[in-house]
């Protein structure tokens, strides 16, 4: 049962093979047994059992929503009413949200049962899950390895089969990179496709929520519920949501796949490249046509991102001041002391580093040289993609240059950590949708294949990934020790 897809679980629920309550108990049991992976900040056992029973009752009455009774885990960046929402930070360790994020309420209405809130890099700032106040998440494939980040808890929980599905957020690769390093499928939708309301902001112009699951089909089922217009988010786009599962079985005949030469140069692990080449052969067999393209400004994406994201974060995180909620230092002497010590003690070092960088680049006299320049480069990067999509239907490349690195390996060297996101960051700067799917193992650690689509072409990405998953079984492989536990 642990390896069932959402569609299989729904069928099992429909045919009374098991109830939602049994399903929830089953996964709660696995979570308890695999607690050493540290995937969860909060396990919502009581609420989950109640919700599962309610879903079972509804099912008996014949009322059932799209994902009725399916257990799900939310990244702890999403506000959940009455449940601790920490964002992986000491700052919000005591914060219980008074409201549900739009994404959370949509998935709730669709009948999913929340079983826990997953661990993450503090305020989604990190690529290894090591910046979490709650300690690092271990990669289920190898406990010495990181699971990736910032949605590392979600990725590892799905990979270890502790939940059939999870949500994540992606600001510079935070869904795709952990999906790749943990061997699961993760989709970052087009900016504006999924509401950001109730998702604690890191970099507002880049943040986007998306599904993380074993298969493309599961991601399609989840995105179907998550996507759509929300009047509470002004940057959300009012555009009809297509039926994502309907096109999963479309033929790939004649599909033009672009390979950006900049993604295949120096830095790419040769065995990762080999896995990609093998995958391309399979897609070609299914009728796809491969073409080399160029995204000339790729190298500028990391410096551009590390101006824009910190700038926005420095402002977004100003509200965590110890005044209204969250961490407050002991015995503040006055308001300045309260601000300074609450933030000094409440934030971890990576968050502080980014707040400082962001404050600096927005400062009077530096704004034009950094922030404004970065916005100009951002336009160039978007333009690269626009030009590419005139020639190809989809872009394919690695999600990360290497398989998962070891815990502690890059923690002391932020720049080398930032460079892990070289293939994912430009997608956020352009606001495009992209998906990472399992593409094999290198040194017994998973490798991800990234598909980048044109605006609002999530259906095409899911279609390609689904077709790929019909002829491969990487997505079905379970980390050693995570079978029946």
């Amino acid at each position, binding site marked *: 049962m642990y390896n069932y897809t959402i569609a299989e679980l729904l069928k099992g629920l429909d045919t009374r093979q098991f109830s939602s309550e049994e399903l929830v108990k089953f996964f709660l049991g696995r979570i308890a047994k695999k607690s050493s992976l540290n995937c969860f900040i909060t396990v919502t056992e009581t609420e989950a059992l109640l919700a599962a029973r309610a879903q079972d009752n509804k099912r008996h009455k014949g009322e059932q929503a799209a994902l009725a009774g399916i257990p799900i885990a939310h990244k702890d960046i*999403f*506000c959940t009413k009455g449940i601790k*929402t920490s*964002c992986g930070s000491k700052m*919000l360790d005591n*914060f219980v*949200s*008074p*409201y549900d*994020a739009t994404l959370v309420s949509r998935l709730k209405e669709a009948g999913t049962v929340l079983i826990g809130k997953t661990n993450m890099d503090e305020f989604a700032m990190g690529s290894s899950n090591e910046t979490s106040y709650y300690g690092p998440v271990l990669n289920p494939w190898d406990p010495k390895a990181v699971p990736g980040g910032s949605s590392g808890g979600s990725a590892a929980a799905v990979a270890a089969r502790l939940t059939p599905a999870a949500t994540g957020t992606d600001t510079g690769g935070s869904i795709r990179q952990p999906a790749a390093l943990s061997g699961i499928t993760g989709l970052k939708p087009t900016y504006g496709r999924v509401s*950001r*309301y*109730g*998702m*604690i*902001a890191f*970099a*507002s*112009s880049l943040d986007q929520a998306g599904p993380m699951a074993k298969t493309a089909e599961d991601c399609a089922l989840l995105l179907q519920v998550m996507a759509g217009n929300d*009047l*509470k*988010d*002004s*940057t959300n786009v009012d555009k009809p949501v297509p039926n994502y599962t309907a096109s999963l079985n479309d033929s790939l005949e004649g599909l033009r796949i672009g390979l950006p030469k900049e993604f295949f140069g120096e830095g790419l692990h040769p065995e990762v490249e080999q896995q990609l080449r093998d995958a391309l052969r399979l897609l070609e067999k299914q009728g796809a046509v491969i073409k080399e393209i160029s995204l000339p400004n790729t190298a500028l994406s990391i410096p551009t991102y590390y101006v824009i994201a910190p*700038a*926005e974060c*420095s*402002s977004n*995180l*100003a*509200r*965590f*001041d110890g*005044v*209204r*909620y969250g961490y407050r230092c002991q015995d503040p002497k006055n*308001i300045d002391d309260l*601000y300074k010590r609450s933030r000094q003690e409440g934030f971890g070092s990576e968050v502080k580093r980014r707040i400082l960088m962001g*404050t600096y680049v*927005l*400062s*009077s006299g530096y*704004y034009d040289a950094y*922030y404004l320049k970065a916005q100009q480069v951002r336009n160039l990067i978007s333009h690269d993609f626009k030009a590419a999509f005139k020639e190809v239907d989809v872009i394919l490349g690695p999600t990360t240059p290497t398989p998962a690195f070891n815990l502690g390996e890059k923690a002391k060297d932020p720049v080398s950590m930032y460079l892990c996101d070289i293939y994912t960051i430009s997608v956020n700067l352009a606001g495009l949708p992209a998906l990472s799917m399992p593409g094999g193992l290198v040194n017994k650690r998973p490798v991800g294949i990234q598909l980048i689509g044109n605006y609002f072409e999530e259906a095409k990405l899911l279609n390609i990934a689904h077709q790929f998953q019909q002829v491969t079984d990487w997505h079905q492989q379970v980390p050693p020790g995570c079978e029946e536990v």
Partner: protein
Amino acid sequence: MNTDWEIIIGLEVHIQLITASKLFSGSPTAYGAQPNTQASIIDLGFPGVLPVFNQTALDMAVKFGLSIGAKVAPKSVFARKNYFYPDLPKGYQISQYNLPIVVGGSLLIHPEDGVPKRIMITRAHLEEDAGKSLHEHFEGQSGIDLNRAGIPLLEVVSEPEMRSAKEAVSYLKTLHALIRYLEISDGNLQEGSFRCDANVSVRRQGDAKLGTRTEIKNVNSFRFVEKAIQYEAKRQIEILEQGGKITQETRAYDAHKDETRSLRTKEEANDYRYFPDPDLLPVLVDAAFIARIQKELPELPQEKAERFETMYALNSYDANVLTATKELAHYFEETLSSSGTHEPKLCANWIMGELLAALNKENLEITASPVSPCELGHLILRIHDKTISGKIAKTIFEKLLAGEKDVDAIIEKQGLKQVTDTDFIEKIIDEVLKANPSQVIDYHSGKERLFGFFIGQIMKASQGKLNPEQVNEILQLKLKI
């Protein structure tokens, strides 16, 4: 004031718009509610919440822009102004920075002691109000009330074109009248709906270069603005005349002590790190939108004053006084219509004279006038149709002020009706002349000044009820005999 010096004043006015809900949340905006009862999770800056722009505020800002002949920006952008303060929940204020909604335009002012002057407006932009810190009632702590946080403000910035405190006050009154005409703000100064920051500098007459300015923050009455500017200009002149230098700084006006004092200098000022708010889309305004707002514009003070001059043959002074507020202009037109529309000048004189004097004495607004325009119009009609004299009218007006209602009933009850019966008038005149034979002789021997004496006696004998013109005419005839 020392005439060697020229005072340069620019004003920034924060006007609270009367939208039902806040600029970026659905919370109500009513004044005076219990602290924090009108603050939602959005106003409180909770994690994950997002702002949604209230389009009504846009309508109001565009209305204002069109009314001052400004350019309405086809694209304006909300930015974040970053600073830490306990009553600023998000750690930034959402405000328009380098792309405001209203650019340029002007206001024609009528200073009390000078000639009309056109003051150019630099810009007007939308922004959210901050909350309030309450320092009283909390021993060693401060309370925070976020009811005001997020209320829409229109900040109107003038060019530094005012040259006296009186001009500044005139500008503020003109602006205040305009926003009330447009019905975009209640303009309530006590409740902080209309708050003024004054930038003041001085320079020697003839100097081209502007002096270093200081900014006086948050002055909430016209009278205090005048006093604060006067004080500040005097302070700066004294410093400069003693060879000192003005520090660029923000100052506060203390009404109790009638002085300004330093709040913070430029060096201590925040670096606000403005950048476009990524949570909000640019505000786009097209020609059709502007055309719709243009159509909704009411008659503006200047237009109304011009109409009063042409339509009612009033002089420019009267027209401007009567249109100073929408309510006063309305009172005038209602009075005129109740008086049968014959005597616009008489209506103007009564309102600007008797009525405003009475209201000022009681410190009442025109809307709280104890005499309704209908009653005053009726009174003026009775003067017009000669039922009563102007003198009697004043007596009746006193009764109206005291709360009596029906003009005709007062005339009837008190027997104040003017007498126009020639026989009766002749009879009274004859009696007065008979009673004062020596004065008649004196008059005929050349003491023509005694004519006034006879009029006085006649009016006294008739309790002022005789028609004065007829009395004049008949008395002259009688005395010629």
